[in-house]
């Protein structure tokens, strides 16, 4: 059986040996280098832009400015997956430090660099605003003229009688939590190659969403979709930073201006910090609770700092931005107000654990504050309130698969939660903490695939799922092998290439294994059906009498009558047999009340840890961490465990270190020496992973489940150790030290 086996990642060896061709390794004849000229101001009027001095530099082939969009037959200037508010290059105004104002195509990187410096731009600085709370005030400077108060979207969730809920409470606790912008810091930076030929555009892009890129580019140029082809080489990490549309419009329009030669843009590390960030979030959470720990009401107000352009934020706000900030609890009355706010910072967008990370940071730290106020064990408080199978969530959905308690309990057990605990007395104090989280996936999306069985016995899986090191292609090949009973070694994964594979929404939101996996199951069923129909005349029986077994067809009750699939194809003179599979979900929330279907299933994860705090320096060391996730069914135990561990390490950086510091909009640590991410030395001494399965369970994604609990679990352990509650991420030694000294 191909499912449940720890087969290695398909290209693991090639990746380790450096044999995988990433985007940066692709070389096309006549390829030009692109370079972006970026705004040094967070908000300014462009008074004058003169590319002519740069055009005189030898090797410079073309320079793209907003002027080019005025030409007849030119592409549209503005794009955006939800609202088209973002210009390919700035026209008369820049709205963040790093916004593209021009782009150069040149024969060499040196010529491109020289040209970038020769372009004359004159700016007139305008008042700017940086944090979402200030930006949302009516008198704040406007990031976009047509959006006074900078709030471009306000969404609501209304469930139950909030007033009655608070009136029924013995205690009301209110707190405010914040998270800063952070960088995805994927090993591979963003990169795109674009080339035009005969009015058709081909784009190679390190993207998580080839079909979204295709659609956006087709619209930008007024072309039918088929005229745009998007090919995705293996990615060196994405984490949401390569989701949706990033630099493809700029590169494609620059290539359009060039004519026929391919143009390649690869970002420098510093540019990664101004391309897409995690949202800056400000979350006020207020909860009513009875003395016995029963939650009676919860009110959450969230300001999502989206940066200068809306990007995917509006779509997130209609579902994720509401339901991911509540918590997996049975609460009779819940109100959520989520605001999407423009600021003069780089655009914010998907970030591993999007909005669940920020939500869990607030509601799980908050749960411990409540437990402390009640004098109750934090695990017990959660046990009394966690959603159980059949419970109704605040969206009105009945949660059938609910294993929150099982996840949390497993994690707690691994750190010996029920054992007596010595916190220490000297300079180093110890504490324990835990947290649980609930995350939606995309409410409405579609995945398609094609299975092609070739006469040589190879099964091709054509899929738009992007392999970015997470092992998705390996897991999907395992599902295809299991469903068709064809040996795993004979399964080949083809794609993503929009000209070759059928549609898939995106590789994000931990949806690939579950959604594409379901599409593969459907395609496999169709392939088998077709096989029975083809085999029946060969065996001179009715198709109804045939059953499928071991990549062959056999007569019911007569196992000695068996014919291999390859043989069926050969006898029909067929080169291949194809079957298409589709899996689609139809959810969505009412925009006024947040009621409806937020997610086809719910991601569930928990964490528990033991930390040591040095009270002299404020430094935190994680001694032990256990990450537990509900997997439904584990496809590949080794890869699933790696996801759990990867989440923990990723979360540790978010919890303790990662923040892009902006000074008046200028990033101050846009390099990997000033922007810290965890190293091996920061890892816990003991790192454990638990994967929960259920016999009736569906396949759940695992890419994010154990990430959101990390920060609150650590913060709760710090509180347990030294009695200090940190509410603003990241939890730096300085913040702990200041809190310990009453500052």
């Amino acid at each position, binding site marked *: 059986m191909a499912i449940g086996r720890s087969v290695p990642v398909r290209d693991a060896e090639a990746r380790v040996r450096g044999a995988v061709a990433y985007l940066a390794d692709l070389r096309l004849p006549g390829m030009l280098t692109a370079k972006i000229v970026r705004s040094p*101001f967070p908000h300014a009027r462009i008074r004058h832009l003169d590319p002519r001095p740069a055009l005189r530099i030898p090797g410079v082939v073309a320079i793209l400015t907003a002027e080019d969009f005025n030409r007849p037959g030119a592409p549209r200037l503005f794009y955006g997956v939800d609202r088209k508010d973002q210009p390919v290059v700035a026209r008369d105004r820049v709205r963040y430090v790093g916004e593209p104002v021009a782009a150069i195509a040149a024969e060499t990187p040196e010529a491109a660099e020289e040209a970038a*410096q020769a372009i004359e731009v004159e700016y007139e600085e305008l008042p700017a605003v940086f944090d979402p709370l200030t930006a949302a005030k009516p008198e704040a400077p406007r990031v976009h003229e047509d959006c006074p108060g900078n709030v471009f979207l306000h969404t609501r969730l209304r469930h139950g009688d909030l007033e009655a809920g608070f009136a029924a409470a013995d205690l009301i606790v209110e707190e405010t939590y914040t998270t800063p912008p952070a960088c995805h810091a994927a090993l591979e930076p963003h990169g795109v190659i674009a080339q035009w030929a005969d009015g058709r555009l081909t784009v190679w892009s390190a993207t998580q969403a080839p079909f979204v890129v295709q659609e956006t580019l087709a619209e930008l140029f007024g072309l039918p979709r088929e005229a745009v082809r998007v090919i995705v080489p293996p990615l060196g990490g994405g984490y949401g930073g390569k989701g949706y549309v990033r630099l493809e419009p700029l590169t494609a329009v620059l290539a359009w201006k060039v004519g026929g030669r391919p143009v390649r843009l690869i970002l420098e590390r510093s540019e990664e910090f101004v391309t897409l960030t995690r949202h800056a979030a400000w979350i006020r959470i207020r909860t009513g609770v009875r003395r016995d720990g029963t939650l009676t009401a919860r009110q959450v107000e969230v300001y999502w700092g989206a940066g200068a352009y809306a990007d995917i934020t509006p779509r997130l706000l209609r579902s994720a931005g509401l339901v991911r900030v509540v918590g997996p609890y049975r609460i009779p009355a819940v109100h959520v107000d989520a605001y999407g706010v423009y600021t003069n910072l780089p655009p914010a967008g998907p970030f591993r654990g999007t909005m669940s990370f920020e939500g869990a940071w607030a509601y799980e730290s908050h749960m411990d504050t409540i437990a402390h106020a009640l004098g109750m064990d934090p695990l017990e408080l959660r046990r009394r309130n966690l959603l159980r199978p059949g419970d109704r969530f605040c969206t009105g959905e009945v949660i059938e698969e609910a294993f929150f308690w099982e996840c949390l309990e497993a994690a707690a057990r691994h750190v010996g939660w029920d054992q007596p605990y010595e916190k220490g007395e000297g300079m180093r104090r110890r504490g324990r903490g835990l947290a649980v989280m609930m995350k939606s996936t995309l409410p409405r999306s579609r995945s398609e695939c094609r299975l092609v069985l070739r006469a040589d016995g190879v099964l091709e899986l054509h899929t738009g799922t992007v392999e970015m090191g997470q092992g998705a292609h390996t897991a999907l090949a395992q599902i295809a092998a299991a469903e068709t009973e064809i040996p795993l070694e004979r399964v080949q994964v083809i794609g993503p290439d929009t000209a070759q594979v059928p549609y898939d929404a995106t590789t994000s939101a931990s949806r690939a294994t579950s959604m594409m996996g379901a599409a593969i199951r459907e395609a496999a069923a169709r392939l088998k059906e077709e096989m029975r129909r083809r085999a029946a005349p060969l065996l001179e029986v009715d198709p109804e009498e045939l059953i499928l077994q071991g990549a062959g067809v056999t007569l019911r009750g007569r196992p000695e009558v068996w014919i291999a699939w390859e043989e069926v194809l050969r006898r029909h003179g067929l080169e291949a047999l194809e079957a298409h599979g589709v899996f689609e979900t139809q959810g969505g929330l009412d925009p006024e009340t947040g009621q409806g279907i937020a997610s086809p299933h719910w991601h569930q994860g928990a964490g528990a840890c033991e930390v040591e705090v040095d009270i002299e320096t404020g430094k935190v060391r994680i001694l032990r961490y256990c990450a537990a996730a509900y997997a439904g069914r584990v496809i590949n135990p080794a890869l699933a465990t790696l996801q759990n561990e990867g989440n923990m390490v990723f979360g540790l950086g978010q919890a303790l270190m990662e923040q892009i510091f902006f000074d008046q909009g*200028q990033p101050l*640590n846009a*390099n990997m020496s000033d922007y810290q991410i965890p190293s091996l030395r920061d890892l816990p001494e003991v790192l454990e992973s638990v994967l929960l399965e259920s016999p009736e369970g569906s396949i759940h994604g695992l890419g994010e489940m154990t990430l959101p609990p990390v920060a609150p679990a650590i913060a709760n352990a710090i509180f347990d150790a030294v009695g200090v509650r940190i509410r603003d991420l990241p939890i730096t030694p300085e913040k702990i030290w200041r809190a310990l000294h009453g500052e």
Partner: protein
Amino acid sequence: MVIREAFTVRAPVERVWAFLEDVPRLATYVPGVEAVEEAGPDRYRGRLAVRIGPISARFEGVVRIIRREPPARLEAEIEGQDGTSASWVKASFLGTLEPAAEGTRLACEIDLTLRGRLAQFGSAVLEATARRMIHAFAQRLQEALESPHAP
């Protein structure tokens, strides 16, 4: 980015103040200053050469003294631009003098915003450069005030 530094010179407060008030002369003690000229009342135009990381820049700009409280407090605003490296600097300066056991304690607070290519090196490099310049200035100032030919 805010940079705070303080140092002590062996001279009475009044003498240090008189020294600081003469901006064109004072400027000759600031490392990297290449030219200073008066451009109106409490307004000076100047040029400053500086090297940050691998990039050399020559900022042309204006210093405006916006408040003086002799002999204790001086506030100024600085704006400059370097065409070659496409960088802009904007800073507010607050200097305070107070009597100390051995002379005068000078404290300065500089709120600095750097934009453009030079800014990409990050605050760590920038801060180190600024502090190095302040230390060099402090040393030159001390030498000047303590020399027998001191003004």
